[in-house]
């Protein structure tokens, strides 16, 4: 009897596909981001990211102001990592101008970049848990640690998030008194925090059930879509620009590149935890080797005093770094004048976002949210 009812009612239970627009005002889309998803029941059959709500004309603006003038604007690309944005832009212009960066400034840059990586990954792990439904407890633990580093940034650059600290040929100001001691204390206190976080999360069965084998990104697809950063490394591809380009002084540091095996959300989470441990290693080394000296080259100092008159020789250059979210590159073309002729940002968040649909197909709506969270996007950088 039951059998007959089931067979009879099944055709009428087949549902119509439903199109849902998630965002741009949605608590879990990490900013003003919209996904148009087509659902069959709760399963995603189609997903289309809609971007551009935070478009601020960054590239065009930069083409209409002095070279240094767009430095504070780069802060606002990925507002979690303003220091690394500054470094990438400075690197591109320095390449074109051929100015050197003094030793001490190089070390300061590495310290800032790695602290930024800690800030970014810490916040990301917290937010990922928010997306999973662990509402604000892990995020608050993460913010507690992040806050300490932001305070450090404030004492150095004057602002917690909009640092505007790098200059062509060095950094804006030397480290204030007591900075290194404060930073060392933070670095020493980080491993206990990471262990606490891991005790809370890594072996947590609920987290494992939600994250393992969800949103798998295969190696080939990741490489073909030119995904970079922790998302790519979680899929098992050994690609870290710090190792490949060795920009700045990264060849002097001894660190490993953690890799994932499966390429699911869990791997992406865990790779970031491991990366933080490597960053701590780099930081310890940098504090040891940091020596006294000038923090900006003479040419850079003149340029910083009068950005309007700074000319960059004609040509083009591409400066790229391993930003916490992936390969951040600035492509600039100069005609020899005081403004860039063309200025382009290769934003990791934007490019990593393009494979969102491939990762989400066949999963439930709730999984799409954590897959999006695990890519780690910042809309300021996606839309620019």
């Amino acid at each position, binding site marked *: 009897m039951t059998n007959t009812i089931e067979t009879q009612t099944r055709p009428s239970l087949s549902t119509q596909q439903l199109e849902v627009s998630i965002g741009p005002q949605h608590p879990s889309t990490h900013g003003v981001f919209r996904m148009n998803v087509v659902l069959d029941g709760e399963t995603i059959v189609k997903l289309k990211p809609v971007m551009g709500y935070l478009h601020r004309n960054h590239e065009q603006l930069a083409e209409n102001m002095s070279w240094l*003038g767009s430095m504070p604007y780069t802060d606002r690309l990925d507002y979690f990592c303003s220091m690394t944005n500054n470094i990438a832009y400075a690197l591109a212009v320095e390449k074109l101008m051929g100015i050197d960066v003094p030793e001490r400034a190089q070390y300061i840059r590495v310290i800032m970049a790695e602290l930024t990586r800690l800030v970014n990954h810490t916040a990301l792990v917290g937010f990922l848990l928010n997306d999973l439904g662990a509402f604000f407890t892990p995020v608050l633990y993460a913010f507690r640690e992040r806050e300490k580093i932001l305070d450090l940034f404030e004492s150095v650059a004057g602002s917690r998030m909009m640092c505007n600290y790098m200059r062509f040929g060095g950094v804006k100001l030397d480290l204030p008194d007591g900075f290194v001691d404060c930073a060392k204390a933070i670095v020493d206190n980080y491993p206990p925090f990471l262990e606490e976080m891991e005790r809370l999360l890594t072996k947590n069965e609920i987290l494992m059930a939600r994250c393992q084998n969800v949103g798998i990104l295969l190696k080939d697809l990741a490489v073909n879509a030119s995904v970079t950063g922790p998302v790519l490394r979680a899929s098992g591809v050994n690609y870290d620009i710090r190792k490949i380009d060795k920009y700045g002084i990264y060849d002097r540091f001894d660190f490993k590149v953690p890799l994932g095996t499966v390429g699911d959300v869990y791997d992406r989470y865990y790779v970031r935890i491991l990366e933080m441990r490597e960053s701590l290693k780099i930081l310890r080394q940098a504090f040891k080797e940091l020596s006294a000296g000038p923090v900006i080259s003479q040419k850079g100092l003149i340029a910083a005093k009068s950005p309007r008159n700074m000319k960059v020789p004609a040509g083009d250059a591409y400066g790229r770094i391993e930003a916490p979210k992936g390969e951040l590159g600035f492509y600039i073309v100069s005609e020899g004048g005081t403004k860039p002729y063309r200025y382009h940002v290769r934003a990791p968040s934007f490019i990593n976002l393009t494979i969102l649909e491939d990762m989400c197909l066949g999963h439930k709506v709730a999984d799409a949210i954590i897959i999006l969270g695990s890519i780690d996007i910042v809309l300021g950088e996606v839309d620019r």
Partner: protein
Amino acid sequence: MWGTGVLKGMAVTIKNFFDTYTSKNGIFTVEYPEKRLPEKERFRNFPILVYDEKPEELRCVACDICAKECPPKCITIVKAKDAQGKPLKQPEVFDIDFTVCMNCGICEETCPFDAIYMDHEFELAEYDRMDALIYKKERLSRPWTHFEKIRPTDAKEINERRAKDATKTAAAVKPAPPQASNQQT
């Protein structure tokens, strides 16, 4: 065994919960506005114009450099003129549009006359969107002693440099500041 991971995680949250009562690092927020964290010396929020003695005698010579360097172009400067219409070395109008300023500090860095600096004041909300947020010269003026108070290290450095420059200028035959004529465009 299934569930041990969750229990271990719970232990972490319980520990953190009791830490807020027992450990001095448990609560890491402060109850603003009753309590505040000490300000960092380099903290920058909004530019101010400094004067040495009298508020009418700003250090600013209205050279327009900061207005040209300001990335979002939020500074408006009009030179003052004397009765004969000759331009004076002081601003008649010096407005900064607070709604546009992005607190980058480039004006401070590029001013050759040590006239504009970033202040620490950050409670700047207003009810009016139009006029109240366009800061006029009078609203921006602060005595040099204010700057010395908020940023003692920088102020010391600047004072020393200015004293050295002043003796140099006095020693020169012509007392006109050479820097000024070079920088004006």
